[in-house]
């Protein structure tokens, strides 16, 4: 461990100690109770270092620079949501939840109780109003003792989004969570989301990450998702921050018997993006889908780590992660599937395909499959390649220009992942955004006045 690392680590520990009163005051007991242990963990673990195999291609500690401002009270920004943000995806009618710099934006209330007891709102408020529900789940999945960044989040997180779907409720309208970053100063935000689907509950959750000002942002976000028996959660995350932003996103999913959890992360823009996905298949009959698409150019870096833990028999998991890298962009995929000894009749599939558009773009891929059961069906594989020249010529021979042919090929490659999105208007819109992105146009919805990137 070198001197800067120690300095950076000490700085965050001191920051915690100096601001503990402010942090706890602007949060809730359930979150506060987890802090002490988390900061102890962070003291032990520090930032993931160069010897940490999971962060091999990403130097973490230099990214946590001292000059990022940190706020422990919601900063008062004159902000009229309707003026600045309007998501108009036609026929995408959603329950909308917004956060601004990591704090839930009361629009108009901190907690919405909608049909059949569904709760959407501020995690801190929910922890005060429903401490029993929140404490039953909060911080029970996050691996604070393994990943220093997760511990750091737990120590500092004050708010975020809470979603609760009661037993048997099938929510027709998707829930859309929009995370906005806006500040005149460079800023670090660490917030926390908790999503709970009780027995046989079903919901679609769409998450959009945006930056609204050109300052540099560093986010370190933890999301815990619980799908209880027979529950079904479909998660789509669209990462669309500007290229001076750094984003660490840790998603933890727990699946109980016969539940279905799908996650689909589409990374359109962002300077450095690191997505960690941990899925625990904790009972029989579960189905998991983990999909991801990363589009990166210039000096962007997109990093994905996934861990699918088949702890129980008769579960299926299916993972597909694709990346298109242009210019000097770099990417990494580290996907681990663990089939434990008792997890017989497991079916687990993983595939990672990468397209490099230039000789300078670089992709590191490490598919891993560890099987301790003897009656399973598993596969994994990775490809790194260039555009198919035969296919390009075939299209040209039909009159399609070279650039257009390349775009169609890239779009087709990406659509494999986007096509998995089940909500039609959202899929169509993301297809459009991906198309624009590949054409080098800004990928924001054309009628949205928000200037994300």
């Amino acid at each position, binding site marked *: 461990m070198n001197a800067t690392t120690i300095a950076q680590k000490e700085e965050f520990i001191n920051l915690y100690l100096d601001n503990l009163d402010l942090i706890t005051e602007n949060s809730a007991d359930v979150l506060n109770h987890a802090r002490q242990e988390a900061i102890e963990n962070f003291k032990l673990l520090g930032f993931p270092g160069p010897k940490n195999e999971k962060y091999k291609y990403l130097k973490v500690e230099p990214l946590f620079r001292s000059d990022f401002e940190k706020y422990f009270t919601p900063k008062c920004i004159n902000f009229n949501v309707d003026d600045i943000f309007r998501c108009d995806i036609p026929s995408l009618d959603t329950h909308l939840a917004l956060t601004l710099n990591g704090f839930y934006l009361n629009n108009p209330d901190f907690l919405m109780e909608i049909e059949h007891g569904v709760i959407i709102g501020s995690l801190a408020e929910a922890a005060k109003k429903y401490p029993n529900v929140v404490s039953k789940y909060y911080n029970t999945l996050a691996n604070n003792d393994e990943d220093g960044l997760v511990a750091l989040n737990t120590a500092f997180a004050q708010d975020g989004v809470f979603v609760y779907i009661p037993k048997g409720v099938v929510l027709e309208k998707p829930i859309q969570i929009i995370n906005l970053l806006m500040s005149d100063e460079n800023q670090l935000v660490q917030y926390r989301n908790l999503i709970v689907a009780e027995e046989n509950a079903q919901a679609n959750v769409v998450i959009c990450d945006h930056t609204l000002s050109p300052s540099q942002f560093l986010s370190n976000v933890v999301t815990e998702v619980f799908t209880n028996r027979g529950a079904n959660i479909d998660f789509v995350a669209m990462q669309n921050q500007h290229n001076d932003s750094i984003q660490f996103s840790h998603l933890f999913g727990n699946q109980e018997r016969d539940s279905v959890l799908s996650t689909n992360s589409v990374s359109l823009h962002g300077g450095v993006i690191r997505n960690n996905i941990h899925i625990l298949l904790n009972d029989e009959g579960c189905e998991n889908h983990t999909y991801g698409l990363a589009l990166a150019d210039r000096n962007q870096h997109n990093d994905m780590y996934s861990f699918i833990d088949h702890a129980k028999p008769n579960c299926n998991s299916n993972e597909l992660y694709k990346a298109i890298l242009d210019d000097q962009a770099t990417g990494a995929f580290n996907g681990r599937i663990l089939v434990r000894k008792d997890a017989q009749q497991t079916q687990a599939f993983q595939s990672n395909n990468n397209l490099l558009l230039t000789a300078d773009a670089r992709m590191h891929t490490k598919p891993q499959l560890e099987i301790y059961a003897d009656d399973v069906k598993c596969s994994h594989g990775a490809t790194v390649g260039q555009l*198919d020249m*035969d*296919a390009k*010529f*075939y*299209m*040209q*021979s*039909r*009159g*399609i*220009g*070279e650039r*257009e*042919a390349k775009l*169609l*090929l890239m*779009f*087709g*490659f*990406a*659509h*494999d992942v986007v096509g998995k999105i089940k909500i039609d208007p959202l899929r169509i819109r993301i297809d459009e955004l991906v198309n624009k992105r590949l054409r080098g146009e800004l990928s924001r919805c054309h009628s949205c006045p928000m200037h994300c990137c």
Partner: protein
Amino acid sequence: MLKIKDLHAGINGNKILKGINLEVKAGEIHAIMGPNGSGKSTLSAVLTGRDIFEVTHGEIQFNGKNIFDLSPEERSREGLFLSFQYPVEIPGVSMVNFMKTALNEHRKHKGLDPLSASDFLKLMRERKELVEIDAALTNRAVNEGFSGGEKKKNEIFQMAMLEPKLAILDETDSGLDIDALRIVANGVNKLKTPDNATIVITHYQRLLDYIVPDFVHILYNGRIVKTGGKELALELEEKGYDWIKNTEEV
């Protein structure tokens, strides 16, 4: 329409075409036959602009334009069409999207506005019937998972959509059963007008029972060694390629 003069071409320094001369006029059907390795596929690749082949000598004029000044897509927009011997699968790109993009590029070249979605779909439906192609195929990705016969029918369907001036059918009969062969040939015949022309490249005389050529050329060792009417194909079928090889050596 097409004039090839003393064309020499090869790949990686190997000479394949050694002086091809051929003239195709509007309304004509030409058949090019020849044994394996005679240069048939190289000729079609050079015509459509596959850049892995180098042209070392000669010229090709298409509608009065020097073809080597045109990119593959420009050749297509000018009315050149190749039915591939091995049509390429393009996962993730739907037939509809592919065809719409291609057709609109052709229309743009002619100074026409893009077709409206409904007009485009109507045209697709019409042309699908021409080649008796399964309606469901056009909802799939280009050639992905198509059977050999479906791929060849799809080539003729694309030809029907783009209405080329000169169509080159490269071994369109290979891998086709007799019913598919008849459908493909019928499609080609229906698309025939006095203003367009066709070059049929084939090993076998069989296809020429359905698509009757005006001229038959025999390609051997990079050159056209014999030219005749449709009866030449029958003679070749009877005597085999050894006949040509022996004649050549004599």
